[in-house]
């Protein structure tokens, strides 16, 4: 790999951090707005459910999100503040369908200690000011004037230093905040302040409440007419106002999220740390609070946000599991739950660990993640591309074409599968036993190659061979009519639909026939100047049986032409350029847009938007699918039309949000495909590949496929063992029933096909698994699972004891065969020169695998290296060891065989708190740290002095905005050695927000090109809310902010493909590169993930 890196998202963040409901897109429309850390999703509530409207990338990590409505406005505005102290007020412009910025700015202070408990951003219910608590001891105010315009911001000193929550109170003549805080004796209190905007100061508020629940953590302001505030603790819930105080005890729980149900604030949904959903009710008489009641409704994912939508439907946003849409029922179900889950939204976060495996052994990487937390823990199997689930297959060599036919025009299913070879045609059909067997259609000519077949009207079938067109009865299977090619000419290519046949013979003759009841009528004949290479008359107009247009691909002048039918008038001619002839053309329609697809002999595909009324072609786009000729066919799956492009890199072309998308099919090479929908194999495809005919169903058409394996416990480490076809995981299970919330840790063995637990090794009390590795040792052919553990004692700051456990898998069971006690937590294990390298607290320790007299083995320590705070992440390459330290960035160690010693070679002297490291190549190491940055360092072997050689030089810096937990070498896509992107090495990363990303090392030339493109893209695609892309990607921590270097933002670069033609041309001009070329180069990059 190299220092020039390209970072791109393969799977966007799915961790829901905030949500709110309001009239954002129109005064009449109700919207759910969801924040997923760096993105906002706008949904519309409709009779059909939640309709997604827009996914808005934000150049910042969203710290607070609120909808509010200034005086005189008819719809809500959205207030967003980011963790890097930027804020914006967004408004929906319904006329243009754009998000516009009403106000924006910087709310940072030069001096100030960032709050420990997260940032708070709140809007006064009467819209007099926005309040922000970003630094200890300061409350920032951005006042509104009476026209809803923001005025100059100022700080007010806040005496309380350990603030837990701040909210605005309702119904106060002056803007009033309520502050929940902890004093220096760890007692928790609540007090109120009025904000005096004129004097820029606080005035003591109307009331306060001392000595609250020790776990009080959340304030809920109650709207009029009741007003006041609810204080949610771990054991009590209190209602407090100037005149009233009510409290109820609750079952001990930590409330993570709340959602107000009624506008008058009498009912609230509370979600706790175990995913239990409660309803809190304020009972009241004559606008006086008389008491509180709480009722358990049921279980959901562990909620991070709760938004009541409408008509008893609630959105539950989750950081630890899948988010959900739930319905609150009036009657409990059999299990006593009032909660019914209506819909589930995948969330991979937090990805704590993952591994890349090739389970099908076909060169396609699968990512298996440890996702979720607590009871919502799961494994997720993430795969790129579309799978074919094989139902049946037969060996058949030399297939030259395939078509499916029905036995009657109105039959819902196909009966026959016509398979053509170089000098014969065979007919297959399903027999009564649902087996595919050879049959005959008497009227067909079977001793020659078939060029085309189709169902025809009036229960007929049509077959085109090189000399004739035969019309056959589908019921009697007898020939009804035959059309002969003109003497001396043979038919080269042909196509047909239910009522029309179009064919071409040598000499550029184009002949159009129409199909009647037992009649084939030659309607039109024309001669073109060159030979014809491909044709299509797929009906895409209103008439499903008959096409008004014909697409024709030409030899010699390399053009594609559109003719009108039935008169065969040329209406459009488009030169394709280059020297590669078109091999397959297809007229098709996706989401109401008509396209002409044209596949070339070298694996490229051109697509045009086709105006059906006049045959005009526009918006030409070119992509590279493979390297061999492509054959295009349409097929349907789940009531949508897609196109299958058969080639050395089979691809499905589909449309989403009116944009054409290309998804890899996970097969190596497909020569022909045709849909084959039979009663036994509904919705199936017949696929010809590598001497084999396969019938199979196709996955849902989408780019990434995610399968979920719920564990009910929290998996933290995962490792695959090829030889035993198993996974080992370290996991922990929380015991909810026990009074003292105990937890149990396990090493579990899973089958890599079924993902069932097949064996479990329980760890000791207080012992937890920290690392797992599959490896073998010198002079021992067995493969082992090695597990590193730590005894986490409540009274210790750092573990002082741990173990290395060596397991072998025998008869599907984990057998412990050796163990070694350590003096700390075994944070990392690596196979190293046939030995085992462990990171134990501040030390790197090497163990050898020594035989004992009885034939068994034991771990014996060989050497070690001290000098870290905590050596958390270790990667090795040859004799080199790269260590990611808790707070001392990256260091490079070397193992010296002769001396049997590990020594430090170089280190990065920055104080980065690491979260993951990986070795990109011999000299370049990649790190991720806890301020959401990525960086690369380089070994400086050529340094003049020891000092220079001992320093790892920082060569790349980038703000990812995501907390990376793991890097792994590998790829999500099948790598073809002869494709351009096949040469680009990649590293995959997984993050807390559920992002799966790819870092690709580019050749320098390509990097420079894309850097220029990125610079131009920044000018065209603007940051929502006025946030700057350049600032967002700058490396940022407490000490420094520096411009990003040696990393490119692939997400921005790839959004080039979403731009309209004018914008593309704008960039093309600035870059001095043709639009086609730019598109092709960017499209290639999208194939990296």
């Amino acid at each position, binding site marked *: 790999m190299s220092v020039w890196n390209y970072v791109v998202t393969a799977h966007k963040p799915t961790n829901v951090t905030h949500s709110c409901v309001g009239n954002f897109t129109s005064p009449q429309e109700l919207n759910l707005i969801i924040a997923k850390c760096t993105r906002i999703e706008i949904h519309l509530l409709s009779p*059909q459910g939640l309709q997604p409207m827009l996914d808005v990338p934000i150049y910042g990590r969203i710290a607070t999100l609120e909808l509010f409505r200034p005086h005189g406005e008819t719809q809500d505005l959205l207030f967003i503040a980011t963790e890097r102290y930027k804020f914006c007020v967004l408004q929906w412009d319904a006329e243009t369908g754009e998000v516009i910025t009403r106000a*924006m700015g910087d709310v940072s*202070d*030069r001096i100030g200690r960032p709050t420990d408990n997260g940032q708070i951003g709140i809007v006064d219910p009467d819209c007099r000011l926005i309040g922000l608590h970003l630094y200890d001891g300061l409350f920032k105010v951005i006042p509104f004037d009476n026209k809803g315009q923001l005025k100059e911001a*100022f*700080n007010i000193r806040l005496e309380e230093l350990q603030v837990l929550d701040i909210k605005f109170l309702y119904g106060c003549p002056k803007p009033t905040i309520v502050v929940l805080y902890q004093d220096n004796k760890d007692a928790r209190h609540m007090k109120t302040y009025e904000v005096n905007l004129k004097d820029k100061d606080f005035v003591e508020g109307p009331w306060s409440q001392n000595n609250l629940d020790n776990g009080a953590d959340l304030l809920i302001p109650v709207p009029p007419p009741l007003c006041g505030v609810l204080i949610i603790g771990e054991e009590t819930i209190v209602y407090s106002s100037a005149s009233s105080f009510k409290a109820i005890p609750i079952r001990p729980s930590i409330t993570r999220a709340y959602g107000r149900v009624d506008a008058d604030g009498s009912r609230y949904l509370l979600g706790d740390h175990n995913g239990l959903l409660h309803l809190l009710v304020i009972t009241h008489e004559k606008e006086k609070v008389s008491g509180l009641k709480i009722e358990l409704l049921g279980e959901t994912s562990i909620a991070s946000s709760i938004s009541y939508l409408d008509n*008893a439907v609630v959105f539950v946003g989750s950081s630890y599991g899948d988010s959900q849409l739930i319905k609150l029922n009036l009657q409990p179900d059999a299990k006593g739950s009032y909660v019914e889950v209506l819909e*589930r939204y995948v969330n991979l976060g937090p990805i704590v660990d993952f591994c890349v495996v090739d389970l099908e052994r076909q060169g396609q990487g699968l990512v298996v993640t440890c996702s979720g937390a607590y009871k919502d823990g799961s494994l997720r199997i993430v795969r790129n591309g579309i799978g074919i689930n094989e139902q049946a297959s037969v060996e058949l060599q030399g297939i030259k074409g395939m078509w499916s036919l029905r036995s009657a025009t109105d039959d819902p299913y196909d009966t026959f599968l016509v398979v053509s070879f170089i000098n014969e045609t065979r007919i297959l059909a399903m027999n009564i036993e649902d087996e595919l067997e050879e049959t005959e259609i008497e009227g067909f000519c079977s001793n020659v190659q078939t060029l085309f077949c189709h169902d025809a009207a009036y229960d007929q079938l049509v077959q085109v061979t090189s000399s004739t067109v035969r019309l056959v009865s589908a019921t009697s299977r007898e020939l009804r009519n035959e059309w002969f090619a003109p003497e001396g000419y043979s038919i080269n290519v042909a196509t047909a639909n239910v009522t029309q046949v179009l064919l071409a013979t040598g000499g550029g003759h184009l002949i159009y026939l129409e199909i009647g009841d037992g009649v084939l009528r030659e309607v039109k004949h024309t001669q073109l100047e060159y030979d014809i290479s491909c044709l299509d008359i797929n009906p895409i107009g209103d008439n499903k049986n008959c096409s008004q247009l014909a697409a024709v691909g030409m030899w010699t002048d390399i053009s594609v032409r559109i003719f009108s039918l039935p008169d065969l008038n040329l209406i459009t001619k488009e030169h394709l350029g280059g020297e590669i002839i078109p091999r397959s053309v297809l007229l098709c329609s996706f989401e109401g847009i008509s396209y002409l697809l044209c596949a070339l002999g070298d694996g490229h595909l051109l697509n045009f938007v086709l105006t059906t009324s006049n045959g005009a072609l526009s918006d030409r786009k070119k992509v590279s699918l493979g390297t061999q000729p492509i054959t295009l066919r349409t097929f349907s799956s789940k009531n949508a039309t897609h196109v299958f492009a058969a080639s050395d890199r089979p691809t499905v072309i589909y449309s989403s949000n009116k944009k054409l998308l290309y998804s890899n099919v996970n097969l190596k090479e497909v020569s022909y495909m045709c849909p084959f929908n039979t009663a036994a194999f509904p919705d199936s495809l017949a696929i010809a590949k590598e001497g084999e005919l396969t019938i199979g169903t196709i996955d849902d058409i989408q780019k990434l496929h995610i399968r979920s394996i719920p564990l009910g416990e929290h998996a933290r480490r995962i490792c695959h063992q090829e030889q035993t076809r198993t996974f080992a995981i370290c996991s922990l299970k929380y015991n909810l029933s026990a009074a003292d919330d105990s937890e149990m840790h396990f090493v579990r063995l899973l089958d890599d096909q079924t993902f069932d637990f097949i064996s479990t090794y329980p760890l000791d009390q207080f012992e937890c698994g920290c690392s797992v590795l599959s490896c073998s040792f010198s002079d021992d052919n067995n493969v082992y699972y090695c597990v590193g553990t730590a005894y986490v004692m409540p009274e210790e700051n750092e573990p002082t004891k741990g173990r290395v456990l060596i397991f072998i898998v025998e008869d599907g069971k984990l057998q412990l065969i050796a163990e070694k006690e350590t003096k700390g937590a075994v944070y990392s294990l690596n196979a190293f020169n046939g030995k085992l390298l462990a990171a134990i607290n501040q030390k790197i320790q090497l163990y050898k695998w020594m035989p004992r007299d009885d034939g068994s083995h034991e771990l014996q320590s060989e050497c070690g290296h001290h000098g870290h705070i905590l050596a958390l992440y270790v990667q090795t390459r040859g004799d080199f060891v790269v260590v990611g330290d808790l707070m001392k960035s990256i260091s490079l160690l070397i193992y010296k065989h002769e001396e049997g010693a590990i020594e430090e070679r170089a280190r990065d002297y920055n104080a980065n708190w690491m979260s993951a490291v990986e070795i990109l190549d011999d000299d370049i190491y990649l790190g991720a740290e806890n301020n959401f940055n990525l960086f690369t360092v380089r070994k400086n072997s050529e340094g003049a002095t020891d000092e220079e050689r001992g320093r790892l030089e920082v060569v790349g810096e980038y703000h990812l905005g995501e907390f990376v937990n793991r890097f792994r070498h590998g790829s999500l896509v099948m790598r073809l050695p002869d494709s351009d992107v096949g040469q680009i090495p990649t590293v995959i990363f997984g993050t807390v927000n559920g992002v799966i990303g790819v870092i690709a090392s580019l050749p320098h030339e390509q990097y420079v090109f894309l850097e220029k493109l990125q610079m131009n893209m920044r000018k065209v695609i603007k940051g929502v809310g006025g946030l700057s892309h350049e600032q967002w990607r700058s490396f940022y921590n407490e000490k420094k902010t520096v411009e990003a270097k040696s990393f490119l933002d692939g997400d921005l670069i790839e959004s080039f493909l979403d731009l309209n033609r004018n914008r593309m041309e704008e960039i093309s001009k600035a870059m001095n590169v043709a639009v086609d070329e730019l598109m092709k180069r960017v499209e290639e990059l999208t194939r990296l993930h």
Partner: protein
Amino acid sequence: MLGSWPSLDPHNFSQFKPNDPSNPSKMTPVTYNPTHDRTLSPPDQVIVPEAKNILLRHFYQQAEEKMSAKRAFSDNPMPERASKLPRASASDNV
């Protein structure tokens, strides 16, 4: 306490067909890439960090108050009376 769940528009979710919960939702919204110029707010709505630190602001404010107090002193030749007046009024409140 359950029931009579609020309804803003009775049509919402009325035709909703729940998915099989084992099959997660596949609806993906369009990604928004704004190319218009209104991503920047009007210039008077750009909030910048406070120039004066809160402590300095406090000092200036105090200095200002002192100055105005002095000014009040020079304007009003009966300072003692003035300082006594509020006390009298305060006692009225008791």
